[in-house]
């Protein structure tokens, strides 16, 4: 059991800076997700922690030990690979026992540990089979069992679910989450799937071009993205960003959007800046008649998704995604009125894309 600390870690491949001066602290027992599109440096960061890549700058600590120069085998980590990397020439038993044998555990200890972790991931009946004789999902479980058998300080997972089909992935997601809660091992989990990230992690570190854009709890990342990149990457649909400016009029402020004007009780620091108003699809209520502090929009597309209908609407110059009731089927072209939920608006600088800190308070009146 141990926490992990990345201290200004950089890794360069030729001319590509894969991770650029990344610092990140992971608490003991925490389940943290490294999230980002391919090429953002998340896997590189994980491989640096594993010792499979040598860092070009910076230091890495596991449980206070500086492991920067240690080979992978001496870092007390265990890793689940994207391809599972189950040894094809060994039975499942020998696969799971591999790390324990390397640690020179006694035969009895190995047997007991292999059987207990195999039971934990429900492959106890397959132990004398070879990897070629089991399914992809079962191989995934073998990789998992092999990793947890050694009782490593830190578990590293590189897109472990990406090779499974959608249904199995959803099942495994819940199972993994329960398993990790039970184990309580510090876990660093790399994925490009934001649903996986939101549903599983204690915290999410969203990465972009080799740097961490935001580290926070899943809900905070979802509701209050640090910039337009995070807001656009996390969540389906992505956050709506409306071109906006705020002007003061004595008592309060007015937000001018291309589709209309809203009264708000905001912060003075918004006034006179080029802004984006960021808001999630489900934070917008759809009304069928004009009213106070609403914005008029025209329906473009209606997509029924079962649990709700996803509307694409045009408000002035801006296209928005709005979540509406599953029984609401407006005709394309019809007018609707949008009510933006107070407290759910994120203000961002249009130039830099960065969020403006004052946000949650700058609510609509």
């Amino acid at each position, binding site marked *: 059991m141990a926490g992990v600390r990345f201290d200004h870690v950089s890794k360069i491949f030729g001319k590509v800076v894969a991770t650029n001066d990344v610092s990140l602290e992971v608490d003991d027992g925490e389940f943290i997700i490294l999230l980002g599109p391919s090429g953002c440096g998340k896997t590189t960061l994980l491989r640096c922690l594993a010792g499979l890549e040598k860092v070009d700058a910076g230091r890495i600590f596991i449980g206070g030990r500086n492991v920067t120069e240690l080979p*992978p085998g001496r870092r007390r980590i265990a890793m689940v690979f994207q391809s599972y990397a189950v040894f094809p020439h060994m039975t499942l038993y020998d696969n799971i026992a591999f790390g324990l044998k390397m640690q020179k555990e006694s035969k009895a200890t190995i047997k007991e540990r292999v059987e207990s972790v195999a039971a934990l991931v429900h492959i106890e009946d397959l132990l004398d089979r070879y990897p070629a004789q089991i399914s992809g999902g079962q191989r995934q479980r073998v990789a998992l069992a092999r990793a947890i058998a050694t009782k490593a300080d830190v578990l590293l997972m590189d897109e472990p679910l990406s090779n499974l089909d959608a249904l199995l992935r959803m099942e495994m997601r819940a199972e993994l989450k329960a398993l990790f809660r039970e184990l309580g091992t510090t876990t660093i989990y790399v994925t490009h799937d934001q649903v996986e990230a939101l549903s599983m992690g204690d915290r999410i570190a969203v990465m972009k071009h080799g740097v961490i854009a935001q580290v926070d709890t899943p809900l905070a990342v979802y509701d209050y993205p640090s910039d337009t990149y995070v807001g656009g990457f996390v969540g389906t649909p992505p956050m709506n960003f409306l071109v906006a400016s705020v002007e003061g009029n004595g008592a309060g402020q007015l937000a001018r959007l291309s589709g209309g004007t809203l009264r708000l009780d905001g912060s003075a620091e918004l006034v006179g800046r080029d802004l984006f108003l960021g808001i999630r699809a489900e934070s917008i209520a759809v009304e069928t008649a004009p009213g106070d502090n609403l914005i008029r929009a025209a329906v473009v597309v209606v997509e029924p998704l079962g649990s709700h209908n996803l509307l694409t609407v045009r408000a002035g110059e801006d296209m928005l995604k709005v979540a509406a009731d599953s029984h609401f089927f407006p005709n394309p072209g019809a007018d609707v009125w949008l009510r933006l939920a107070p407290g759910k608006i994120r203000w961002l600088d249009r130039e830099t894309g960065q969020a403006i800190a004052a946000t949650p308070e700058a609510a609509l009146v």
Partner: protein
Amino acid sequence: MSLRAPWIGRTLLYLLAFAMALWVIVPVYFIAIGAFSTPDDLYKYPRELWPHHVSTGALSFFLHSTGTIAALERSVMVAAITLAFSLAVGVPAGYALARFAFRGSDAFRLTIVSTRAFPIMILAIPLSVTFIRWGIDDSLVGVAIAHTALALPFAVLTTSSVFAGISDELEEAAMTLGCSRAEAVLRVILPLALPGLAAAAIFVFIISWNDVFAASVLTLRHRTLPAQVLTASGEAPLPYRVAGGFFLLAPSLVVIFFIRKYLFNMWGRVVK
């Protein structure tokens, strides 16, 4: 017409395959039955298609001829040394080519292939002179070195493709589980590479076993078996030649038959 086209294509394909199989099998067959015929049958014309009087006389005559056993021993020795040299250099080189991106690795690969562009005939004279200077002319080691030069490109390239076919992640997984790189190679990569390495090894052995030119040029009194048979076959009677041919042929056939079986059987088809 259009319906018949694939049928014709298939027929032609099978005819071609059949013709190629005959091309290989007919001489092998005649040498084989010749080696097990009595001398009388051997000299009979037209040749019988099935040996009526099976006899090991020709083979025993061949084996008991002067120098055969000694040449056979030398052939095995030379092939074994060649095998050792080729694998000692070829396996690490193949591994390095497959695993590490180093400056000039493509050029290195090309250089290896291009060594096969020099015919041994052209190299024969300078090689003989050099070997005489080094004092390893007419010796087993000398022949083995020449054979290693012939076999090494093959050994390097095949082992490199064998290693390249084994996922890096397996090696890395072993390393995260407590292995050093050497241990990871030893415990995980080598067992998986074994069928491919065995194939490479057997081919190296056969290259050496079958070589007649380098052995003839580089040796005088210490002939390997092919060189010995070639030298003797000018004066030797037909039974000697047929038996000698069979004797040189048989190991290759047996070995290829077994290695094929080994390659297909080992761990099903999971080794990618």
